[in-house]
């Protein structure tokens, strides 16, 4: 019963856990590390109930192949060779660009890297992207162009010593408990916490200022905030020397209209915010999916980065998933090579062409969203999805489901038979983070060890093995030992230089270095608040703390599932009365792309003109209401602030 020290696979806090196994796939005990800098002896509700969540009774334990329109159990050989031969056929008949791969933000660094290599180096397709495209990919270019680091600049513990914290569009107390706990510590020590979110949240008791803009209007007030800082000269002395300062200043000349009417925050509040943040260094600027899944997410992130740079503070993007950072670091991004090398940079391509012994196209391939759409058009013939329930996390659910159903060949690797897996031609049973070795990179750029605590359930395998099997069937031999894969990463990706399993075994992980690049200021464009007569409401989509994304894992823990009340949506009492809607009755929320039915509850925490639609396990996700409209720079779909109509269900 030797405790195995590993890293939690739920959120990006990356807590260290000890797991003791009683027997195969049976946990005897689970407890946090007292001395790990993030977990510090504490876990959140998901961490405490992690093991039942990933060791659910309906875990996939055998590969499945679709035969006569039904998924039937098959051997690994069959599943791999069927997949490989299908891919080979597409490659020879049409070309490698007819194949697409969507990777996960939950798989290990070694798996993410190997998948990128499989796509670019073996299959030769440019269509390789990651789940981050559906969540937080906006931070990549927005921060590379400003702070220079596509990652948080501060440690979780440093948050507790901040002088002021700006938290925008993040339910941080419920989604990243350890960051939330340090925010509370900071507030207890006099830190000024300024929160901005259309809806109030459990941050409220700790804030000195909580502003509620209209959904979708963040660029408007963020621009006003940057302008206030510059006009009133609240910036630090070195700010005017930062590259881009003059350009930024002139980009703010174009006047925006009535602030309050446009975004719900007035000039006085903007000034209060600016002064509070300027007068209380050091500042940490945080933002979550509320910003990152908005239509103009890249622009908003740049504006918020500007705020941080102007005030001499740091940026901490709040990415939710356990290895969102690592997945992007290691190239599961359609226009990047590992280490944030631009695909369009010939020198970078040359380097990787040598390492991977392949040819690399200069043009980026399709994003995950484009790949799904291309399944409908037929441009993509073969799609592989690893560890992401895209059927529920992609926008325009109805269309996406149809596209995934339609594509000629779909292979899915996952723990459970998700909605995506149900549409597949081949299903690979993957094993969870408790059953394999590897590394995750947390919200502090801390690369940490994931250690196997159980033998994989049934016949499930790690994604690393699955990817190596596919590579082998396609003629390339990939290392199966994650230690060796990391050794290759450490020599080829400068951010990961010096990372090794030996060093990881001696420490609480190794953080890759941030800073180095000089911060640049970016111009801020004018935000537009669109109004749609046919769809007069805006949704506020939230996540609740006992649910992780589409709930694939958390629904399997009876304790977590028990927390899950009926699916509901909330309206302000006045709006409900105006529409003649009654509490406890079903209402239909519809957009151009889809509709869903929820039980109505009333809450005065929901602003007028908004409907709060929480994400719940599976089923009717608010993603259904989103169209394929994406942030033009990052290609992340706009899931937030969608224009909807609300009515009673007859």
């Amino acid at each position, binding site marked *: *019963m*030797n*405790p195995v*020290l590993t890293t939690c696979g739920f959120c990006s806090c990356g807590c260290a856990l*000890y797991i*003791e196994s*009683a027997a195969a*796939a*049976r*946990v*005897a*005990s*689970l*407890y*946090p*590390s*007292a*001395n*790990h800098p993030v977990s510090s*002896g*504490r*876990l*959140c*509700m998901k*961490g*405490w109930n992690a093991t039942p969540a990933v060791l659910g*009774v309906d875990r996939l*334990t055998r590969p499945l192949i679709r035969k006569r329109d039904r998924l039937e159990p098959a051997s690994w050989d069959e599943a791999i060779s069927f997949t490989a031969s299908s891919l080979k056929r597409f490659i020879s008949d049409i070309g490698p660009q007819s194949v697409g791969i969507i990777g996960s933000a939950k798989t290990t660094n070694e798996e993410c890297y190997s998948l990128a290599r499989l796509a670019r180096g073996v299959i030769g397709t440019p269509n390789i992207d990651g789940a981050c495209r559906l969540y937080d990919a906006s931070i990549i270019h927005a921060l590379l162009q400003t702070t220079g680091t596509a990652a948080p600049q501060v440690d979780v513990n440093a948050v507790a010593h901040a002088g002021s914290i700006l938290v925008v569009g993040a339910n941080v*107390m*419920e989604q990243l*408990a*350890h960051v*939330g*706990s340090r925010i*509370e510590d900071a507030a*207890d020590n006099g830190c000024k916490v300024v929160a901005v979110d259309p809806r109030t949240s*459990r941050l*409220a*008791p*700790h804030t000195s200022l909580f502003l509620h803009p209209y959904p979708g209007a963040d660029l408007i007030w963020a621009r006003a905030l940057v302008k206030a800082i510059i006009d009133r000269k609240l910036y630090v002395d070195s700010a005017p020397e930062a590259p881009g300062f003059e350009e930024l200043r002139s980009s703010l000349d174009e006047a925006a209209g009535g602030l309050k009417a446009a975004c719900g925050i007035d000039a006085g509040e903007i000034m209060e915010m600016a002064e509070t943040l300027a007068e209380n260094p050091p500042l940490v600027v945080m933002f979550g999916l509320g910003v990152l899944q908005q239509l103009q997410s890249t622009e908003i992130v740049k504006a918020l980065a500007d705020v941080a740079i102007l005030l001499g503070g740091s940026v901490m993007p709040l990415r939710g998933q356990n290895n969102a950072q690592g997945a992007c670091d290691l190239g599961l991004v359609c226009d990047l090579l590992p280490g944030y090398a631009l695909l369009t940079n010939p020198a970078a391509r040359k380097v990787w062409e040598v390492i991977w012994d392949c040819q690399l196209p200069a043009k980026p391939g399709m994003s995950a969203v484009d790949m799904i759409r291309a399944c409908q058009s037929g441009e993509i013939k073969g799609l592989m999805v690893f560890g992401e329930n895209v059927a529920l996390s992609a926008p325009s659910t109805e269309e996406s489901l149809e596209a995934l159903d339609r594509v000629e060949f779909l292979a899915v690797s996952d723990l459970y038979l998700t909605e995506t897996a149900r549409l597949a031609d081949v299903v690979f049973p993957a094993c969870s983070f408790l059953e394999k070795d590897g590394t995750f990179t947390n919200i502090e750029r801390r690369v940490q060890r994931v250690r196997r605590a159980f033998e994989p*359930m*049934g016949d499930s395998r790690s994604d690393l093995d699955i990817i190596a099997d596919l590579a082998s069937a396609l003629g390339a031999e990939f290392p199966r030992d994650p230690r060796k894969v990391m050794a290759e990463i450490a020599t080829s990706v400068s951010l990961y230089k010096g990372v090794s399993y030996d060093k990881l075994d001696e420490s*609480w992980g190794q953080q890759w270095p941030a800073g180095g690049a000089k911060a640049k200021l970016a111009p801020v464009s004018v935000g537009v608040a669109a109004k749609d007569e046919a769809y007069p409401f805006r949704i506020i989509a939230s996540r609740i*703390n*006992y649910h992780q994304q589409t709930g694939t894992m958390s629904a399997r823990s*009876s*304790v977590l599932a*028990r*927390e*899950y*009340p*009926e699916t509901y949506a909330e309206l302000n009492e006045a709006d409900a009365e105006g529409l003649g809607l009654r509490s406890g009755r079903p209402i239909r929320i519809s957009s151009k792309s889809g509709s869903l039915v929820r039980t109505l509850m009333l809450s005065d925490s929901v602003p007028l003109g908004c409907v709060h639609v929480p994400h719940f396990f599976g089923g009717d996700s608010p993603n259904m209401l989103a169209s394929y409209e994406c942030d033009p720079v990052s290609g992340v779909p706009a899931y937030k602030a969608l224009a909807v109509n609300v009515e009673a269900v007859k």
Partner: protein
Amino acid sequence: MKASETWVLKKTDVSKFFAGVAKEMRLVAPRYLFGGDVTFGVVESPGEIAWDYGHVIYPPKRFLLPHYEDMFRYECGPPRRIRLEAINEAPPQAILGIRSCDVSAIRFQEKFFGSPIVDPYYKARSDSTVLFSLVCNAPPKKECFCICCDAGPYLNAGFDVQLTDLGDRFLYEIGSEKGTKATEAGASMLVKAGSDDIAERRRIEVQADLLFETTAYLAKAIDFISADEVPDEIWEELGSTCFRCGACTNLCPVCTCYTVDDRAEADGSFTRCRSWDSCQYAGFTREASGHNPRPTFGSRVQRRFYHKTSYPYIMRDGRHGCVGCGRCISACLTKLGVPDVVKRIRRGMHKYLPAQDRAAEV
């Protein structure tokens, strides 16, 4: 201390002594893990025991009330006939180096699980467990407040064998039949404690008392809570920062609540298993109809403190439900450890008391 029951064990004899104990039962003791982390685990040899460990997060209660415990198995074999099979794993064990707070908590649990109805699983494990506790010469962490809860840093009663570190030797006190029996094998290695051994122990007792940093004045909270005088506003304010993680109850060595699930196995059989549950989760009381008698965070924080500090429970359990181990302070993501809540209730009640009573308030 009964002088006749007080002995001395030289540290040089410790390994041999416990190797003897290990012949009869498995040894559970503190072990270092990684980076300074400590846990109680089964040790193969006394050499692995980290006698100098400070404190441990994960409570040794898990050796009597496991985090996940299988109760029985059943098969729905053909033709739809049920076969039940009891599971009862209660290996004889000696828990070494356990602190007084955890010992008090185990005695509390033994009383709770032993009456009025006897829980067979707890009884089996408790019957086959002997505790070799270790006095705290100084509070192992700043959050300790056992001294306010009559549960440490040493005990006058309720222990099996109590060890005190006197430098090159342990003071060895036997406090129960179980302790006597477990000592038999190594009795020849013990010598009677002398007056300077006792004096050294007294000195340690006095010294330890001065080193506690955390205090919890439970009395007023017990009064207010028992009389149901704490208004909802105070509870809701306390609950407004709760993360609902369940750590306070998981790590509390006194807490006993559990849930039961029938788990499907790969071979088609089922195992009924119980696991630690928490009254701090909203689903703890949610009924199948959806109705939840404790729907707010505040009502759940109130429940935790009612269960721990109200007179009816104190009368039934023989003591209040806190041993001052401080785990709920260090495990809490906000500030809902027992001392913090007790203080905030006491101070919050000032608003609600008639003027003349305020003078008497601490």
